[in-house]
């Protein structure tokens, strides 16, 4: 994936007469010709990374205000992190744990539900199959964010019967998110499932495997990359949700990072910038780490969804 087709841009840079390979001159010569590319890379890096460097620097700045954060990495202390974790009115520890819990459970649930549905659509031929797929695509065009009024009323009603699925319950929120588990994920997975040859299933079937065994022990392993992609996208999507989380969860201890940190920033913006920044860094850390760790899968999954072949 990382190795480009050598001919990709050949017309732009005609192959010149090469100096002796390995000599210092050769390296310099090649670097010189590519230098404009490095200039572009540098500009892109500054644009891409600056806001991130800014927030990391601010999180370590002991003065903690927005103005003082402008001198990057001038002073370093972890005081903001201490303040963040001990602030009694903003239970950051709870928010963090809540977000991770809600995100992880939603991701696992989404992968499971989506994979099951994709398996059914990819491997079985049944009445309403094509219509079902089309309906799923249509339904996912209606983001749940648009329906918070209905979601609020639904959860109010459910609270009378299943308190755990009602308002102000994290489990209830996860269930709402799982309502969106089919839809785009199923379609993405469906495309990937189709690339696993049917002959594998058939030979397993001849060996006496049931459809359940084929699914759990053969197919799921072969489609692991797309499962990772869907899990990650679902985790990030859940973490980013602001509207539904703020409608469903009302107790401060139960809220998520997006809702909690937004209150932080809307209440005491410039004075408490350092504390907010440390909260932002801690919140971003696991996401960025998972993203980077699964980069290979994500890239292949994203492009498999598009450039199939």
């Amino acid at each position, binding site marked *: 994936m990382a190795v480009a087709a050598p001919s990709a841009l050949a017309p732009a840079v005609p192959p010149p007469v090469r100096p002796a390979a390995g000599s210092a001159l050769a390296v310099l010569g090649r670097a010189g010709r590519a230098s404009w590319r490095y200039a572009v890379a540098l500009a892109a890096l500054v644009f891409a990374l600056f806001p991130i460097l800014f927030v990391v620097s601010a999180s370590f700045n002991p003065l903690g205000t927005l103005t003082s954060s402008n001198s990057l990495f001038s002073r370093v202390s972890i005081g903001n992190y201490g303040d963040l974790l001990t602030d009694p009115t903003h239970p950051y520890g709870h928010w963090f744990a809540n977000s991770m819990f809600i995100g992880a459970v939603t991701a696992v649930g989404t992968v499971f539900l989506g994979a099951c549905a994709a398996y059914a659509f990819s491997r079985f031929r049944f009445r309403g199959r094509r219509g079902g797929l089309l309906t799923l695509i249509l339904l996912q065009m209606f983001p749940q964010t648009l329906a918070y009024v209905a979601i609020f009323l639904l959860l109010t009603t459910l609270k009378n019967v299943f308190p755990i699925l009602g308002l102000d319950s994290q489990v209830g929120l996860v269930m709402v998110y799982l309502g969106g588990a089919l*839809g785009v994920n199923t379609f993405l997975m469906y495309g990937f499932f189709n690339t696993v040859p049917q002959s594998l299933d058939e030979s397993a079937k001849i060996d006496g495997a049931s459809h359940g065994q084929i699914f759990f022990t053969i197919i799921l392993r072969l489609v692991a990359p797309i499962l990772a992609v869907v899990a990650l996208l679902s985790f990030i999507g859940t973490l980013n949700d602001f509207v539904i989380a703020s409608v469903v969860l009302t107790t401060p201890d139960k809220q998520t990072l997006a809702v909690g940190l937004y209150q932080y920033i809307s209440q005491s913006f410039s004075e408490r910038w350092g504390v907010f920044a440390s909260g932002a860094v801690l919140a971003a850390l696991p996401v960025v780490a998972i993203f980077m760790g699964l980069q290979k899968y994500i890239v292949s999954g994203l492009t498999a969804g598009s450039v199939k072949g």
Partner: protein
Amino acid sequence: MPQVVIAAEPASGEPSSRLRRDSHSTLWTKGFVAKLVLLAMADALGLYGVIAAWAVRSWPILAVLIPALLAVNIVYFSRRLTPAKYLVPGLVFLLVYQVFVILYTGYAAFTNYGDGHNSTKADAVEAILAQSAIRVEGSPALDLAVLRDGDDYFFLVPDGAGGALIGSDGEALKAAPGARLEAGRPVGLDGYDTLSLGDIIAQTAVITAMAVPCSDDPNDGVLKTPDGAVAYAYIPTLLYDEAAGQLTSQADGAVYADSGEGNFISPDGTVLQPGWKTPIGFRNFTSIITEPSLRGPFLGVLAWTFVYAIGTVVLAFAVGLSLALVLNHPSVKFRRLLRSLLILPYAFPAFLSAMVWQGMLNPQFGFVNQVLLGGRWVDWLGEAWLARATVLVVNVWMAFPYMFLICTGAIQSLPAEVEEAARVDGAGWLRTFWNIKLPLLLVSTAPLLISSFSMNFNNFNSIYLLTGGGPLAQPTDKAGATDILISFVYRLAFGGVNRQYGLACAISMLIFIIVAGISALGFKRTKVLEEMN
């Protein structure tokens, strides 16, 4: 039912022993046992739900739960219906949390649901009568004890026969057996706390606002208290005629009739508040066009939403594609590292990005003004056009790494022969790119660009967390300069004093139709749907 899904994970992960379908003796495999356990749990939960729903008389839940429970059992105990076994878990969630909420939103779009119209007609009558009540001339002052149970307050008054009556806001007076009275004054009742004078003073606002109905007939009036110590009977000045469904003023005989739009209205046009929730047909949809105060903001928001979504996709694609073309070249070293660094904005959670940019762009203290512009005052998010440009740039920052990734992938999978053929034919770099590579890239990335468009069409966070939809030219404006449809909907439903859920739901449905329509056209043209067979 949810438990099925979550609990299914560990059980499903482990490979079960070989199952021979032809033999009865091997039916009890691990997989079968796991299925049985999960189904038993689902059934137990479902049965609990049925009983609980019955207990609280929640018929809609019961009507959904029983068929669902039956369907699940049929599907999993049947020897056929194999595809359904894999579809049911997701479908349950889909139907409850997606299909139902869409249908409800569609229904609410045809009602006047919102502030002043958020309950039933009976509730509205009761509230109107209670508001219109005046103290009955010469009525006795009743000794009153204010009781509390949790967050609810109650009036305890003597019934004139040695006992006492208890009632609360919206709950008519009824006998309170076992109430304690001292010299005819009620003082307390088991299960409730009696408020002290200090408590009453602390809660004056709540207590003096209470109106306790004297009986279930709203025409009988209410009890009110000015001080928490004595209560007076108040009789409504309006009389409700249930048969005719209209209110008549006792004072001047004016008749307030049901307007058919969720209000009582007199012939001279006086409207009584509150109204009630009622279907109003296409009124919400037509008001977007016919009401001048709504048409302007709506059309502006609609246009900006398209500019924003298309602009984000085009700009981010241009940036991503350029970077992919420039950096994806053998002469560039550290390509892998570069790529990892460049996708950081994509990996960084979007809600945080919006907040961080908001800080950097702060006109007074932010980095951009203080450091890059040497202290010059530029109100990036405070002036309409500048704010629009700024949110677009910030959104491109969030979106370009994704485009960079998919373009890198698409470029690498371009067939090399096509390009060589072009070169042999003497096409220059620009021509090869413009006439050959770009069309091929667009074909392979089109479905993703369409998805990206529909995602940005509804990109609530990147607007709301950055500008809140503002700036507003006037504080009373219906929409801000950067409001896209979805944040406009949020403003209608939750912002300001006059919340209009019905209208918000109507615009939600319009968004749905627009996005679905454009995506359908796009997918049709890219022929992605043909792969479905």
